[in-house]
């Protein structure tokens, strides 16, 4: 398919692509760190969007895939000595497998029941991991510093990891766009609008939902591994920050769910907001409350998110704001 000819693809792709280029050219550590966080959020939000925005199934536990996949990937590179990109793939594959298992149980639930089940899954995963010995119990695992030597020491490794993340996020965007424009994506939107009618029209909803779920789970696993590798350690409270699940959800809603550009804009905007709040004297402690307020305002007044609002206000720009 000629996705490179479609105008809707380029703004999203270029935003991420150019961000990476800027960081690589400036070669500043602090900029890289900020960019890493933003890219990570973009990747997580965009992958959540495939399930939530396209298919209409809200996963409150998206971070489970980041955590479990990341844990496993970290284990592969730290204990088993795998190179980071293979370990990351391993993390992604594990997340997909877990999504398959969870999905077999919970995807048959509709609407709010599904959302509730994902909340339950998230909590159970957290409790499980903090009790499970090979993963280091509640203290987690620490990286064996020799893992960094392969890349020429910690400094080089951090840059290498950044590049990997940048490529992964670009891949998420491409995949997300391909899905949206494909027949598969049309089926997903049909499921979102009216699942029973979609099935009557021939959409194999059980299978397609599972595929969407797997795709949305794979990338967080990759990203999690890269994140923990960069940090040098992984522990349950860090990996399953339920708060992060919520933040990712807010990002998707803020930018506009179901759109390619939505999660990207949402991630950027949220990251800026978060940064501002954390450094402002007044708002330092109110960052969660402010995110909640932002979410409420979006839900009540701008349900289509920022990009959704732009599309409505400027119909001529719709081709570009996808």
């Amino acid at each position, binding site marked *: 398919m000629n996705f490179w000819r479609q105008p809707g693809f380029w703004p999203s792709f270029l935003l991420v692509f150019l961000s990476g280029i800027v960081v690589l050219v400036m070669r500043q550590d602090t900029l890289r760190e900020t960019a890493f966080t933003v890219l990570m959020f973009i990747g997580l939000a965009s992958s959540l969007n495939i399930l939530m925005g396209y298919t209409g199934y809200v996963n409150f536990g998206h971070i489970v895939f980041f955590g479990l996949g990341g844990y496993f990937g970290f284990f592969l590179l730290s204990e088993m000595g795998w190179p980071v990109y293979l370990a990351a793939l391993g993390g992604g594959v594990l997340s997909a497998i877990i999504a398959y298992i969870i999905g077999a149980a919970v995807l048959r639930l509709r609407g709010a029941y599904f959302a509730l089940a994902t909340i339950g899954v998230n909590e159970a995963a957290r409790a499980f991991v903090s009790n499970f010995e090979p993963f280091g119990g509640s203290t987690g695992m620490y990286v064996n510093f020799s893992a960094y030597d392969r890349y020429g020491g910690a400094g080089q490794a951090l840059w290498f990891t950044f590049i990997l993340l940048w490529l992964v996020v670009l891949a998420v965007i491409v995949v997300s766009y391909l899905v949206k424009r494909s027949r598969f994506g049309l089926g997903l939107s049909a499921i979102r609008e009216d699942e*029973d009618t979609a099935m009557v029209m*021939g959409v194999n909803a059980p299978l397609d939902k599972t595929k969407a779920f797997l795709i949305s789970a794979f990338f967080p696993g990759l990203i999690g591994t890269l994140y923990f590798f960069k940090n040098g350690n992984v522990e349950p409270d860090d990996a399953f920050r339920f708060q992060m699940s919520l933040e990712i959800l807010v990002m998707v809603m803020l930018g506009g769910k179901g759109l390619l550009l939505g999660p990207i804009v949402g991630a950027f905007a949220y990251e800026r907001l978060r940064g501002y709040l954390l450094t402002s004297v007044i708002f330092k402690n109110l960052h969660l409350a402010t995110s909640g307020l932002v979410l409420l305002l979006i839900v009540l007044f701008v349900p289509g998110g920022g990009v959704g609002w732009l599309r409505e206000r400027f119909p001529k720009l719709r081709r570009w704001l996808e």
Partner: protein
Amino acid sequence: MILQVQEVSKRFGGLQALLDVNFELPEGQIMGLIGPNGAGKTTLFNVINGVYPPTQGQVIFRGEKITGLPSYEVARRGLARAHQVVRPLNDLTVRENVMVGACFGRERHSRSSAASLADQALAQVGLIDRADQFALSLNVAQKKRLEMARALAARPYLLLLDEVLAGLNPSEIAGMMETIRAIRDQGFTILMIEHIMQAVMSISDQIIVLDYGQLIAGGNPHEVANNPQVIEAYLGDPEMTARLLAD
């Protein structure tokens, strides 16, 4: 025979919705399914296209047993349905709605060929001007046409129409009837539930009558209209009876 329904019964807890329904539908015909409200007509449709399985009995479609298959499997085999209570995919455009039918129906079109097929179907039902509008914005009559276009785009062997004329004014009804005739002339087989007696009697090759979940009569429109059991079943509705007798 494109469709064979054999001894189909359906029970919901204490309620016997269908009992021992038997009929056959030859290819290329229009068969009307009539009966008083609550007779089980939509239930029969639901059993045929896989929304739920029958408690007993078989449904055979083009020689294959489709009893108990999920609705998407039935749709893939070439059976499409337009619902009584219209269910458009609201946040999609009219064209996209119809494309879903084309992509996931019998012929499994790719998205690009589905788009042109969708436009053809929309032209056929007279909705082509609204192809880029959101389905949400259509009125009831237009949504009914959309249901029809979606079902047509799936290029089914058999089309199930569930009260597609309900809620339409006389000129809209005439328009829809034209469309149905045109569809029949293209070679589609149609099984239609309808309450508008004039319409069903004039367009059907055969009619079957359901009452309290049981088939009480079958035959050509003239035979059915003069069948005493049918008249009795409709006695609760004198207007209806008078109309039948007047035919």
